[in-house]
């Protein structure tokens, strides 16, 4: 087991005490008693470095634990390890962070995906029962799909971000990786709660409003007919704009299979259109990188984290005229942040600049709202955040759907990059399937597609639902997984 773990390089640090506890005290009555759970290395724990797989935070110990981590422990889970990731969650390969490349348990030498690749690989390899990840543009769902496990990104604000090291605050969500939808649901139930330490975490009042809206759907009450069709009454939309050139035959096949299985479970499967999809990816990267450049400005080595030696500042001084403090910052940030992180900070800085914001940042904000509006127009459930309080509906409006079905990734996991190999654009394109859910803040889940034959690499099917409709999403996912 340990040898296997070392091969995968899924783990950043191990909590020995928690491992002993997990083995010693199963089933004491709390929801997650006896569960061994791992958390991504960008979630603060009270026992490990919150490294974010970065030299800048390699030895950084947080004085507080993340709310999600604390809530897991409160219901009995043993947080046994922190997991490998792309540096500051920037990437989709888990290839080149402080802890080195992680590998996919499904096939030697292949990437587990990213950025929560360590969490996905650890769950897939059975190193833990479930794991937490973070999902900014698909970082939970993509590795889940590639490693053959369930990956759930709840609605933005369901789970507190307190203690999650920010990449892009308006898109970041704590997500769950598990071997089954039921397990993912159990972990989600433990961590989804209001938290005053995160102002963007849903208030109890908003949660109640969503519940009331979600309960007032008579067409869902008619579901679960006695003829064994557990998802009868639910309508699934297949968005045609995701049928992109990059989609591999295997992924297309899995998509078709998923639609057929949902139909067999009683769902009404219809085609829908989301015309803004093609703009979503560039808008996503513009906004995510802009926020990243802001959120990562604090890693200057002054108050915490690693600082470059004075000699490095002197070296930077030869490059140009910088104030004394700026020299120190530049030296630390050049030495301690990896090349992909530096690239994204520079791009993000550029798109927010006075000259460029008109052409990049602000249009991207408009596209984001467009994506949200298109999803609101497609889902039957009203968006609880809409300005006017929506009225409960007697019947599902014509043409509206309860959830969307689409592939999680365009293809199966690629071979892991060589340490110095950089292919940033290729890895950005992979996010085309997943970013819309983050832009709109809606819940999405990746469920493993059934393999066609022995030795096939895993593929994921993605379900997306309206803002706040996490419970329905999990119900459909469970049906899809069992079929």
């Amino acid at each position, binding site marked *: 087991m340990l040898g296997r773990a070392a091969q995968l390089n899924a783990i950043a640090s191990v909590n020995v005490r928690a491992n002993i506890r997990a083995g010693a005290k199963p089933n004491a009555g709390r929801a997650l008693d006896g569960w061994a759970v791992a958390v991504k290395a960008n*979630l*603060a724990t009270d026992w490990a470095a*919150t490294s*974010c797989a970065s030299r800048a*935070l390699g030895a*950084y110990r*947080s*004085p*507080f634990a*993340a709310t999600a981590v604390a809530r897991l422990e409160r219901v009995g889970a043993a947080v046994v390890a922190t997991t490998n990731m792309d540096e500051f969650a920037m990437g989709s390969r888990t290839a080149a962070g402080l802890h080195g490349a992680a590998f996919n348990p499904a096939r030697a030498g292949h990437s587990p995906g990213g950025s929560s690749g360590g969490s996905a690989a650890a769950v897939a390899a059975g190193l833990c029962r479930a794991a937490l990840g973070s999902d900014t543009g698909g970082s939970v769902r993509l590795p889940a799909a590639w490693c053959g496990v369930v990956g759930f990104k709840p609605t933005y604000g369901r789970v507190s*971000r*307190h*203690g*999650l*090291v*920010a990449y*892009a*605050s*308006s898109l970041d969500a704590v997500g769950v990786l598990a071997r089954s939808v039921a397990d993912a649901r159990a972990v989600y139930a433990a961590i989804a709660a209001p938290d*005053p*330490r*995160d*102002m*963007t975490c849903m208030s109890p009042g908003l949660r109640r409003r969503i519940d009331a809206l979600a309960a007032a759907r008579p067409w869902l009450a008619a579901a679960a007919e006695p003829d064994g069709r557990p998802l009868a009454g639910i309508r699934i939309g297949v968005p045609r704009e995701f049928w992109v050139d990059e989609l591999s035959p295997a992924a297309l096949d899995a998509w078709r299979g998923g639609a057929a299985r949902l139909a067999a479970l009683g769902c009404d499967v219809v085609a829908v259109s989301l015309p803004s999809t093609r703009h979503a990816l560039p808008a996503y990267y513009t906004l995510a990188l*802009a*926020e990243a*450049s*802001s959120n*990562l*400005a*604090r890693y*200057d080595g*002054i*108050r*915490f984290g690693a600082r470059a030696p004075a000699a490095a500042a002197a070296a930077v001084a030869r490059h140009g005229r910088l104030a004394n*403090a*700026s020299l120190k*910052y530049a030296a630390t940030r050049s030495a301690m942040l990896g090349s992909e992180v530096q690239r994204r900070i520079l791009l993000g*800085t550029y798109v*927010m*600049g*006075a000259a460029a*914001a008109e052409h990049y*940042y602000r249009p991207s904000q408009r596209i984001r709202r467009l994506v949200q509006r298109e999803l609101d127009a497609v889902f039957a459930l009203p968006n609880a955040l809409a300005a006017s309080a929506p009225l409960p509906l007697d019947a599902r409006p014509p043409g509206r759907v309860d959830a969307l079905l689409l592939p999680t990734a365009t293809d199966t996991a690629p071979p892991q990059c060589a340490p110095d190999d950089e292919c940033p654009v290729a890895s950005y394109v992979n996010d085309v399937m997943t970013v819309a859910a983050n832009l709109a803040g809606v819940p999405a889940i990746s469920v493993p597609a059934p393999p066609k034959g022995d030795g096939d690499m895993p593929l994921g099917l993605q379900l997306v639902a309206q803002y706040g409709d996490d419970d329905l999403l999990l119900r459909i996912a469970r049906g899809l997984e069992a079929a």
Partner: protein
Amino acid sequence: MNAISSRIGPGARWLVGRAALARQARSHGSLPGEFKVAIGLELHVQLQAAQKLFSAASARWDDAPNTNVSAVDAGLPGALPQLNPECVALAARAVLVLGGQVQRRSAFDRKHYFYADQPLGYQITQQWHPIGRGGVVRLGAGEGLPRARAVRIRQVQLEQDTAKSVHGVERGHVLVDLNRAGVALVEIVSEPDMETAEEAAAYVRKVQALLRRAGVSKCNMEEGSLRCDVNVSVGSGAQRGARCELKNLNSLKTIQGAINAEIARQAVAAARGERPAPETRGYDARSGETFLLRRKETAPDYRYMPEPDVPEVHVTDDWIAHVRSSLPETPEAAQARLERQYGLGREAAATILGEPGCLEFFEAAARGRAARQVAAWITSEVFGQLAYRGQRLADSPLAPRQLADVLDALGRDAITSRQARELLIAFMDGERRGAAELIAAHGWAVVSDGAQLRRMADRLLDAHPKEAAGYLRGQERRLNFFVGRLVQATGGQAKPQAASAAVREALEARRGQA
């Protein structure tokens, strides 16, 4: 053309040298020629909230360095801001007391720059959706200005203070104190509606008084709870002036000096037909000149971005009405009321309103008393003592009750006005015993008992029969001899009129016997 720029002949401007212009600007705050001065102020005011804007750490920035610092204030990874509702309420008070509109919807933005006193790499502020818009500060004779001036407020925004950089304590190092990082400020941005340094100073004093009275801020420039940036532009003829920003002006004197120096500098340039570039400048009080800090081309790009960690702030009309109802009356209303209700003169009323806490002090002391006398004692005796001690009324131990007791004793003729003044000084020194006890302890009680004085006068007449006989023979001046002796005999505790009456009574009684 406005009052300050009286027109002179077009040819004459070439004769006006730089030094003369600067001198004139300094001494009169005005300029010759067709110059049009526009001055706008940005005031940064620390709110009197117990905790910081986005963290539960204490807002006491002058505690031991780096003791009031939470994870958010230090920018620790994973820590998120939590908006303090007390700060929102105080900012709303500031907006209302300046006559502006509290916005039902406001939002925070990030303003980015790297500096050691900026732990997050950005300041959370309100660039696009401030909590307050509009408002006006009226200046005029009450503020010592020759003409009325309405200064419009553009916006009031809620934002974080920076940490404090401490230079020169440790060689080769700049020390950073995070206590101040994240303390709540409001930035009050005026329109460029002022034309002289005196108006700018009057504006600062008026805003100070308004915010202090409303309990928004201590507005103390020495301790930095009020800081000021000034924009000055001097236009010439049809040409609009370039806007130059003067930074770090931390006293009223510096503000006025810097404005006058900058007006002179820009006017000289304009007179030469040059157009000064928009730039940021500092002020050297010793040389009395402004100097370049940074040009516009090198101005930082702050890359403003909506703050994703803090949701928009939505307030209801009811909430705004609630805040409004808890505000003190406006100075104009209070001034009118003092004149009407208590019959005070304009100047006395203005003096009382100019001192924080004095209106309440006056009203408490004046209840059931001669209000004008109370006001006179406050504005002359009490303020005189405060000035002598370099103290503010709010910091003095003197209570309204104590002043009232002193004036009551004086009114009863129990003490003389010199003794009343001594009592007042004792109370302002922190004396805790009551007025009656002090009067008794000093043996100050005025001898006004007519019977006692009469007895004393009789004894005097017995002791000096020659002088008494003289009076009875018609020597009127003998009366003064006895009055002087009697006052002396009481140790100065008898009033001369009372003593004179007693002596005359005793003498006339003897006339009958003789």
